[in-house]
């Protein structure tokens, strides 16, 4: 075949492909209804509010279900949702909630105190998902229906953060759940993919591994604030960061959550796209083993804390991060700024602490464990190698899968010298972070330092049972100072939470209490 014929064949192939041209489009429209497309990296294999929660699951749960209270805004506020008002006894043990009377489940059943009781009991009995938040303080017998629209919780012991936990305890329709019960499983099998909620959206299409489609409940009991609210959304799985970038550029997605920091900066400059950029509550720290090896010595930990180049953390995130100034994240309720005391790079001080530790010239090796494939953590390891090298400390970088990291960090004997940890507070109360330094947190991923200070543990236990927040703050101020003095970890940074939106998507309200890529879709509307 001659070269000319080959060229003609090639042109023909390209021509055929051209016939299929014109696929890309922004905002899906079905029967005149606006269906927004949200590109997400993580699937939601189980949406039962009693069994499972992570960011993707919680985003869908938030759309399908309502809770007594809800987190909104930044700094996060707890506002009434299914509850209209609530009262707490002076000892923070008895909590009484009045409910709205017009809330309806998706099948039309009213949301009553009986449904609230059932939902809390179910989660406590199943002992999965969010149960840990209340398992120690609430027994099913402590939940009482006062009347159809009043519910009372009597806790086993005073627990001041109770109200801050409630936005993550969704209310389910008992009739729907129990109609699907099999062999006493309280409907667990069905609820993985089922909908028993009263939220602003209901299920339309559930294709695991591909997409989840929800449609707006036209007569949602709380109404819709904006007449241009979305009529539904598709939670589309796009696992690769570069593919998400192309999807938002091309208009195949209207919102994406998982592109790289560099690409966020890039798409922010493109026409038709804007990028939100808000300070989050997720902290990055390098936890040191406080019980074993060289890092058991507080002087070595302080030397490392003073040797670390904190500004590099900001550079890794292209400036879209802030440095922590206390063991508690900036923006969390109860945070106290300890800016003047916070460790910052000071090689002179670092060397002094090395001397105090009896290792003026270093001469030993420390292990730094991080999540395999997480580029930011790898870069932080390179910074450690450079910084600690100046103290004569060698750093061995060990990438591990997350399960292996958790397994190693769970025991003090196997926990690495240094381990990279991102931690997000689950609710807006200082107790949630203070408790990460308690002995009871040893074995969990945020307890890998095996921090040991009985005084801090005692103060944490005392603070959580005091009802008056001002009184509690005196304890938390002390706790933050004491943890800081003990240098159990390199207190790192809080990176900004970012999403890329097509410019016609409006109404986004950032709330740092939501996890990684989670967005509340209820206030979103379209302005074209």
């Amino acid at each position, binding site marked *: 075949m001659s070269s000319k014929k080959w060229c003609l064949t090639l042109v023909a192939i390209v021509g055929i492909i051209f016939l299929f041209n014109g696929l890309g489009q922004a905002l899906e429209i079905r029967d005149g209804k606006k269906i927004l497309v949200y590109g997400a990296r993580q699937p939601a294999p*189980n949406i039962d509010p009693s069994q499972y929660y992570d960011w993707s699951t919680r985003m869908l749960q938030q759309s399908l279900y309502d809770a007594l209270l809800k987190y909104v805004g930044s700094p996060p506020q707890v506002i009434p949702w299914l509850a209209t008002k609530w009262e707490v006894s002076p000892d923070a043990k008895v909590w009484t909630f009045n409910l709205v009377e017009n809330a309806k489940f998706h099948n039309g059943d009213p949301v009553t105190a009986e449904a609230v009781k059932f939902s809390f009991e179910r989660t406590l009995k199943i002992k999965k998902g969010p149960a840990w938040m209340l*398992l120690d303080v609430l027994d099913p017998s402590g939940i009482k229906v006062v009347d159809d629209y009043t519910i009372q919780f009597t806790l086993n012991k005073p627990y001041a953060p109770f109200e801050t936990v409630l936005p993550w305890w969704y209310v389910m329709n008992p009739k729907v759940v129990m109609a699907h019960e099999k062999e006493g499983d309280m409907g667990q099998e069905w609820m*993985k993919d089922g909908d028993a909620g009263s939220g602003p959206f209901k299920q339309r299409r559930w*294709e695991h591994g*591909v997409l989840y489609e929800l449609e707006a409940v036209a007569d949602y009991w709380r109404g819709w604030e904006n007449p241009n609210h979305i009529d539904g959304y598709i939670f589309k799985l796009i696992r690769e960061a570069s593919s998400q970038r192309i999807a938002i550029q091309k208009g195949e997605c209207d919102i994406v959550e998982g592109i790289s920091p560099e690409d966020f900066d890039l798409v922010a400059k493109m026409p038709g796209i804007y990028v939100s950029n808000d300070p989050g509550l997720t902290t990055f720290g390098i936890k040191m083993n406080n019980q074993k090896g060289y890092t058991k010595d507080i002087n070595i930990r302080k030397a490392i804390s003073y040797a670390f180049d904190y500004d590099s953390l900001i550079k890794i995130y292209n400036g879209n991060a802030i440095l922590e100034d206390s063991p508690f994240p900036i923006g969390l309720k109860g945070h106290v700024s300890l800016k003047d005391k916070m460790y910052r790079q000071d090689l002179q001080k670092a060397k002094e602490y090395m001397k105090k530790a009896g290792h003026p010239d270093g001469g030993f090796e420390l292990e730094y464990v991080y999540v395999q494939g997480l580029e930011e953590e790898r870069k932080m390891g390179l910074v450690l190698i450079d910084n600690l090298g100046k103290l004569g400390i060698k750093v061995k970088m060990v990438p591990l899968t997350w*399960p292996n990291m958790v397994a190693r960090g769970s025991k003090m004997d196997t926990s690495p010298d240094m381990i990279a940890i991102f931690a997000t507070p689950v609710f807006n109360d200082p107790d949630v972070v203070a408790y990460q330094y308690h002995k009871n947190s040893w074995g969990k991923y945020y307890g890998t330092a095996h921090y040991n200070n009985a005084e801090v543990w005692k103060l944490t236990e005392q603070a959580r049972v005091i009802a008056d927040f001002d009184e509690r703050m005196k304890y938390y101020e002390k706790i933050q100072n004491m943890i800081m003095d003990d240098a159990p970890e390199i207190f790192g940074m809080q990176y900004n939470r970012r999403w890329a939106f097509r410019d016609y998507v409006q109404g986004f309200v950032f709330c740092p209490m939501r996890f990684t890529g989670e967005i509340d879709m209820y206030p979103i509307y379209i302005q074209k």
Partner: protein
Amino acid sequence: MKRYIVKRLLLIFLTLFGLITVVFLISRVAPGDPARLAAGPDATDEMVEVMRKEFGLDRPVVVQYLSYFKGLASGNLGRSIRTRHNVIDDLIRFFPATLELTIFSLLLAVVLAIPLGVLCAVYRDRFLDHAARVFSVSGMALPMFWLALMLQLFLALKFDFLPLGGRLGLLTEPPAKITHLYLVDSLITGNWAVFKDALLHILLPAIVLCFPALASIIRVNRAEMLEVLNRDFIVSVRAHGVSKVRIIGQYALKNALIPTMTMIGLRYGWMLGGTILVETVFDWPGIGLYAVQSAVYSDFQPIMGVTLLIGINFMLANLIIDLIYGVLDPRVRYE
């Protein structure tokens, strides 16, 4: 022949038994506590124990092993501790996507590679042969991940020819589930709109997945064709005045196809197990992604299920290839 097939099938059973045993042991000695991971990062010890008991992880390993085989006999592959779904349901959900992509890619590779290999041999050291050589070397050397992103960038974003990823458009409802292969099901039901949509969606991932296979099949087929074309019987046939097309099609190609078939069989297994990258970039909801996510979470039962399924497929494909040898070359005897 029948005896040979029965013997091979028995061998497949034995191999699968060994495969399951090895994977079972490896998954049990690997570090990590699946019950703790599944219970969540904040779960109390009591919650972890609930999970351990529910999924039978509190029982001795030998009991778990025997129980797995007992379940297997009744078609029960256990439950995923991560998704809480039955593994068999997950496999039915995800495997057809991988199978469809693999078969389509392999067909694409075979349809393009065999004629190209023949033409390269016939027009040896001419423009086409050189071009195919460059193509083959690139096909084997280019990282699949890079190629996938480049094709997305140009064919999906820049020129808007093809969709970015997925099996169907966002608002397209899947066809009625008969074989679970969208192209086949839409054809059977005469749903042309879905067929067109599915075809457009499969093109990019299939091109990427078939690229290395295409390259290696071209090279093998070309080399075999050259060898066969220089054999005495071809000279003899040519001397008898048989046409060039007939010599190539009827005499040379048939003889050159045996090593090519071996390559196709190996490539099928490789494609089936190696779709993970393509599935990730193109969000193809297949078994590769499912397997990796399960491995990351130390989710034993899906890992066992995927191993079993891929093992069966690979072995059956090789059996079929071995049987095809006999059709291509009557001298091959099965004993």
